[in-house]
Every structure is written in C-alpha cells, then in structure tokens.
C-alpha cells in the first residue's frame, strides 16, 4: 500500500465527512435543508439555492453508468499497470453524478445505463476510493 503512486484526494474542510464515510465503506452525500437538492461533490453551500443549511445523508450507493471510457493508454503515467481500465460517470439513484471506476467486470462488458453499486477500494490505509461494480 505504501507504494501507491496514483493521485490521491486531498480532503478539504468541506469534504472530510465524505472521505471519512468512504473509509467506513459508506457513501454519503450532502442534502440541502432548504431546497432539498442532493449535492455532490461536497460544498460549503448548496449550489442550487446557496443555502448553508446542508446535511450529510447516507445513500444506498446504487446508480447507473451515465457514460464511460476505456483507457487503452494510461490517462496519467501512474495508471500504466491498470490499462485497460474504465473511467465512468455514475448517476446515483438520488441524482448527482460522480467520477469513478467500474470494477468487477471486464472493461468491454460495461454499458451506458448499466445498473451499478458502490464498491469501496481501500487504496491506502488512509484513503478509500468510491468505485462501482455491476449491481
């Protein structure tokens, strides 16, 4: 794990709860207490109504593949060993889109619209990335 070379997130005061939840293998996003919007990535105000009244919400982690690409060449030198790998946008059941990887199937089996579920990847002792696998 110590030799993990790929880019790691650097949590901010706004996003620590998200990454802490991921470490517990929970997917949490924010919800606006004023307008009800589901929010991702984590913010300090609701991007719809600019309210600071935000709550953390544990969600199911279910979603669908909105789009994907198969990286046949590394998109960064540190991803060399992973080629081919799937970079995807997943649409959560609650609405927000997030960037992720699809694991647990062959890259060419991924389809737009495919149901997926969160699959947590403990890439270092400190960081868990939220990936998805076929549901």
């Amino acid at each position, binding site marked *: 794990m110590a030799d993990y070379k790929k880019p*790691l997130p650097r949590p901010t005061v706004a996003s620590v709860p998200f990454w802490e939840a991921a470490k517990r293998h929970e997917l949490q996003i924010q919800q606006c207490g004023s307008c009800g919007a589901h929010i991702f990535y984590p913010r300090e105000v609701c991007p719809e109504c600019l309210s600071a009244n935000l709550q953390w919400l544990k969600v199911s982690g279910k979603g669908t593949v909105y789009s994907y690409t198969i*990286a046949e*060449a590394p*998109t960064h030198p540190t991803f060399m060993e992973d080629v081919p790998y799937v*970079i995807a946008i997943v649409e959560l059941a609650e609405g927000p889109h997030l960037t992720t990887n699809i694991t647990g199937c062959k890259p060419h089996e991924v389809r737009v619209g495919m149901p997926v579920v969160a699959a947590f990847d403990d890439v270092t002792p400190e960081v868990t990335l939220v990936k998805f696998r076929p549901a």
Partner: protein
Amino acid sequence: MSIKGKAAIIGFAEMAPQKGDGAKTPLGIISEVTREVISDAGLAKNDIDGLLTGWALGEYSVLWPSVVAEYLQLQPRYFSQIELGGASAAGMAWRAAAAIEAGMCNNVLCVVGDTRGTKATGMKPPAFPRLDSEFDAPYGLIAANPGYALIARRHMAEFGTKPEQMAKIAVDQRKNACKNPTALFGSKEITIDDVLNSRMIVDPLHLLEIVSPCTGGAAFIVTSAERAKSAPNRPVYLLGAGEAGGHCGITRARSLTTSLVKPAAESAFKMAGVSPKDMHFVQPYDCYTITVLVTLEDAGFCKKGEGGRFVEEHDLTYKGDLPCNTHGGQLSFGQPGLAGGMSHVIEGVRQLMGRGGERQVKDATIGYVNGNGGIMSEQCSLVLGVQ
C-alpha cells in the same frame, strides 16, 4: 445596443506550429507575432493601446498582462488576461470590440503564444483545479482525453453515432491541412480506415481523433469599424458574439451531449441577425472529432443527435458544401500549447480577407467561429463577415 459591426479585425499573424518545446519562450513567441501583426495591420507599435492576452502553459504566472506589456513595452489603456482555455481568442475578439465601443481604447492587440512544455522557461506547469484533483484525478479522469471520450460514448449511446462518422471529420480536415503549408500534419491525406485503425487511446477515441500539442502563437488586432476603413487589409467585422459557461469538470456538466455551444451560438447568430444556413464556412474548435460534431449540432447546423449523419453527408473540405476548419483544424494544423483557439479565429479572418491561398473558400463573405475551452466548459461563438 450591441457591438454588431462596431469593430473589425484588420490584421493577423500566425507562427507555424512546431513540434516539441521549440527554441523560444512564450514571451518570445508573443513578441514575434506582435511585430508581425502590427505590420500586417499597417499600424505602428505606439498605435496599440489595448492588450488582451491568454495564458501560457509554458510560462504561467500571475499579473500576466503586465508581464506581456512590460516585455513589449506597451502602454495599454485597456488590458486583461482572457482565461477561457480554447475559447480565449474568440473571447478576446468581442471584448476588444466592446472596449473600443466603450471608448476605452482604439487598437487592441489580441495575442497568445505557448510552448509544448516548460523546458524553454524552466518553470513548473500550472496545477489542475483543486476539485478536479480531489474528485476526478484519483479515478484517472485527468486532462482532456478521457473527458471527451465520455462525451463521445454518451453521444453514441443516446443517438447511435458511429465511430466512422466521427472519423470522417478528421479525414476531411486533413484534406484541408494538405493545402496549408504551415500545418503540422499536412503532407498526406488519411482515410476513415486510417483513423479507425489508429491506436485506441480512450475508447471510443482513436489517436487520429485527438489533437497533438505543439509550440506556436498567433495574434490579431481589433479596431473600430471607422478606422478599419483605412486599413490595408479587407476589414473583417465582428457581427455577432455569444458566450456560455457553467462547469469545469465534465462530470458536473448539465448534459454531456447538449453543450454550452447552444446558448453561445444562439446569442451570436441573434446579434448578427443571421442563421447557420447563411454561413459560408465554419471554424469550430476541434480538440477532438466529437467536439466538432457536438458543436455543429448545438450551433444549429443540424438537429441534435443527427451530427453523425450530417458530417457523413456533407463535404467539410474547403471545396465542400460546408467548409469546416479549412486550415486543417487543430487536429491536423496542431494545437499550440494553450494558444486559446487562435487558429480558428485567424483562419476565419484569413478566409474572409481572401488570403486563404490554395484552400480559399470561394466568395466567402460570412462565417462562424467557435472557441471551446476545458471539457466543453467555456464556449464563445463569433459571426464574422466582410462587406
């Protein structure tokens, strides 16, 4: 009130793109194209009282407009940095016109220059936005390639767009590049099979559908419509402009397949009082083939979802029924660092001035230019015309 017809581009200069880092710094490139553009416009250095500049990957710093003014010993009464990625040049054109119309200045130098990397300056490359680094980069969504591949894949899924249709854009633009002596890739035409057999980089995008970054720079000068009458070149009037934004990372775009080109182009055509069918050519920003396809749809040249069939059915070469990126586009001309989509604006101007040489579009008097920055994040559309 609008800026329609209030200002004109009266001169341009463009360095031939070079592979690799090149032997000049970005400021050195900016200096050379500035000397050339002032001469082309029939002006003297002291006539330049406005300065708009982009940013350079090879030399990225704060206070950049002052750095450029100091290096060139200009004394602008209006100056700024336009940081709209590949939409910067188009963004400069209308801002220059607006500043002139507002009485801030008379002759605005719009200039960019960039190197492939930072070797010439020994500086560090600029960082990506913090939020992209936190939520995209850990999954490999880094720089532009995968972002545009996500757009292409979604377009294919929603509308049945085919890889060979996207490839046709690269093929036609290469034909244009073969008539452009300064194009980096202008020595040999390519076929749809060549594109589809080129290395898959980020499925569904192949190597020949992806720009090749290089070293280069370009400049144009905007002046008032009144002063343009005495310019040595045929003045190219800014007839319409429109701009749109709203996301940085593609994951946060409201739609992957309907882009911000739509509102930008609508504004530009509305200001100009014309429609896509009136255009004699298009110079849409082309970092990838899919960028051109989506731009043609959203600018209204065909219906949403029909871009694939549209590019198949139309000849996009300089001799065709919809000449598109007549310089070869960045795909074949080269993409000078972050030179901000200058090549599209300049090719539009070149065609309208009648200086297109072997690739001149016959009787071209009006055309559409689009600048696109980031991952379809920044859009600026222009309608340019001559009288």
